[in-house]
């Protein structure tokens, strides 16, 4: 068994035009920086990207938007990106906005082998259009389908050669869910260690969900809203 890849370029080599990709991260926190850069270099097009946000103009998925590589974006919030707005208003980019918990749980369902879930989020709103509504104990819920994505690309703090992953702080967010949900899951990690070096008690994503892993480099970890106090 060898899950280890040299770098992002090698790990994403077979991602093809028209692919559907889950991308982990919340805002710019915990995003797979190396793979995004490699996808931009590769110039793969017509992608459907499922990610909570769409990056900012010059970082994260925003870099792929600049190159017009994204055909459709499925997100819960896309507010920080002028190029995104321009492409959306001009009709170049298709966007599906879905509630954040629904986005997370549709990933979870895929990873748990459950075809769909019922959630109350969006009942009575335009999100409910065309969806089955079912009542349980007098409360209404929408039927939401598990995602079906060709690839998942996630970022973890530490990983081992078996593909086991540990995330750091709130950089966990969507990453473990998307790791479970891809047909092929690619993990980039800040530190790649030998099997046995990570405590099995501390693993967040078991290696069975991870097909490819590599140690990333030059993480910028950009902060979107720097808020500090003096003392």
């Amino acid at each position: 068994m060898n899950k280890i890849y040299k770098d992002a370029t090698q790990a994403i080599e077979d991602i093809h035009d028209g692919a559907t990709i889950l991308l982990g991260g919340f805002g710019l926190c915990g995003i797979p920086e190396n793979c995004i850069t490699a996808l931009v270099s590769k110039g793969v097009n017509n992608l459907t990207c499922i990610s909570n946000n769409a990056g900012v103009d010059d970082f994260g998925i925003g870099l792929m938007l600049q190159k017009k590589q994204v055909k459709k974006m499925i997100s819960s919030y896309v507010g920080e990106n002028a190029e995104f707005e321009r492409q959306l208003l001009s009709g170049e980019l298709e966007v599906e906005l879905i509630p954040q918990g629904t986005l997370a749980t549709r990933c979870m369902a895929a990873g748990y082998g459950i075809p769909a879930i019922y959630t109350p989020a969006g009942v009575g709103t335009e999100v409910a259009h065309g969806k089955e509504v079912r009542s349980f104990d007098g409360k209404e819920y929408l039927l939401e389908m598990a995602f079906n994505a060709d690839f998942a690309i996630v970022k973890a703090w530490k990983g081992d050669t078996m593909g086991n992953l540990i995330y750091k702080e709130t950089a966990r967010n969507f990453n473990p869910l998307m790791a479970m949900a891809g047909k092929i899951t690619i993990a980039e990690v800040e530190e790649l260690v030998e099997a046995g070096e990570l405590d099995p008690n501390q693993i967040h994503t078991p290696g069975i969900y991870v097909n490819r892993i590599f140690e990333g480099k030059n993480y910028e970890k950009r902060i979107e809203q720097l808020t500090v106090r003096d003392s």
Partner: protein
Amino acid sequence: MALDKYQIAQRIARELKDGYYVNLGIGIPTLVANYVPQGIDVILQSENGLLGMGPFPIKGEEDADLINAGKQTITTLPGSSFFDSAMSFGMIRAGKVDLTVLGAMEVSENGDIANWKIPGKMVKGMGGAMDLVASAKNIVVAMMHTNPKGESKLLPNCTLPLTGVRCVKKIVSDLAVIEVTLDGFKLLERAPGVSVEEIISKTAGKLIVEGEIEEMKF
């Protein structure tokens, strides 16, 4: 005098009870954390995967991997925990979060809320708002009573696309504290120096006024 945003936050903080798990939205709701009453412990939930959100970090100690749902750098506290986004909304849907505070563009007299989309304007998305309003046990809205044009934001029916239906329990505006009941809005308190008549005139939805309406004290 109408309340300023800090006083709105201060008044909402009086809704907090010891041991509450609380989710605060972006804007005025975030300020509520600054007014937690003495002797009360609340645990702040940030829906990107943190319970026990602490204050902003000391300058130089910020950590890009540690942010809140507003993407601001924050800190943890003793007893904090991290989790993924599905578990985060799981605890919200399961009713484990005691109080949710969020802003709104419109609230209707039956508790519908609109706060995510204005037709014709750039739509940024609902984020976690639809999940929160669909599940939270107790939703308090922090908002101005009227929009910049002076039109009431408390309506018989929302005119903007909805975020959730029949979910708002209480509104703290710059003019009043209002409960959402089965029979419509009910006036509970008024801002210092603001008359009941002014509140009635600026509330387009059905407003129930019973007896003497107490003035808020700060």
